């Protein structure tokens, strides 16, 4: 029911939330030796999700290791500017998806009330 009600936005919100967790993990591990930063290829994950894959599997399949601009001696590939930009981009995407969903909810509510 909710799949057809919210369409692509429900899947997108789920994936945005998972990507937010992954980028926060990168930020938390900015000083961990040997940690390799990961990110979700969002459009690939969304495609997989829309083709019927579960959200967890879709984000796992689309997770990639980040390629650092400059490698470090301790093998850590977290670069804070990159992570900050990715995080804010993802947060904006999350907000956008959220407003699509709330617009849809408003539409349905008004239809139900018959205004």
């Amino acid at each position, binding site marked *: 029911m909710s799949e057809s009600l919210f369409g692509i936005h429900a899947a997108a*919100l789920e994936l945005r939330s*998972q990507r*937010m*967790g*992954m*980028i*926060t*993990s*990168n*930020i*938390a*591990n*900015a*000083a*961990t*030796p*040997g*940690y390799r930063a*990961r990110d979700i290829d969002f459009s690939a994950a969304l495609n997989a999700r829309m083709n019927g894959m579960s959200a*967890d599997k879709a*984000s*796992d399949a689309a997770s990639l290791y980040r390629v650092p601009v400059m490698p470090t001696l301790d093998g850590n590939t977290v670069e*804070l500017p990159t*992570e*900050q930009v990715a*995080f*804010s981009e993802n*947060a904006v995407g*999350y*907000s956008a998806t*959220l407003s699509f*969903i*709330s617009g849809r*909810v408003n539409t349905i509510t008004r239809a139900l009330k018959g205004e």
Partner: protein
Amino acid sequence: MGAPMTLFDLAQRGMSAQLVRMNAAASNLANASTVSSSENGTYRPIRAVFAEELDNRSGLASVNVRSVVRENTAAIKEHNPDHPLADGNGDIWKTPVDENAEMVEMLESARQYQNLVEALSTAKQLMLDTMRLK
């Protein structure tokens, strides 16, 4: 094993780890000018070593402090026979703390802490918006 890790757990662990790191740097700075009468008795700088802590159920990777290690740097010998702690040869041993390096360590730690706070507050705001669906 309790509940799966949340963003809040993740940020909290990351912040605690940064605090341990900052405490280590502060201890080093506090001991920067201590003097000892033997080479082995000299204070050696301590350093927190982080390790990734992956929670498979939520896919979040948190951080914990694997250990706090002592740096293996040589003490600085100084000939100063008048010093009350001087040994038989009139030498004292100074702590090998690089104050500039410690200050940079603290700055970096503070920046990473701030980053985590910022990420957490954005994530919290988004979660609240989702709850209210406004």
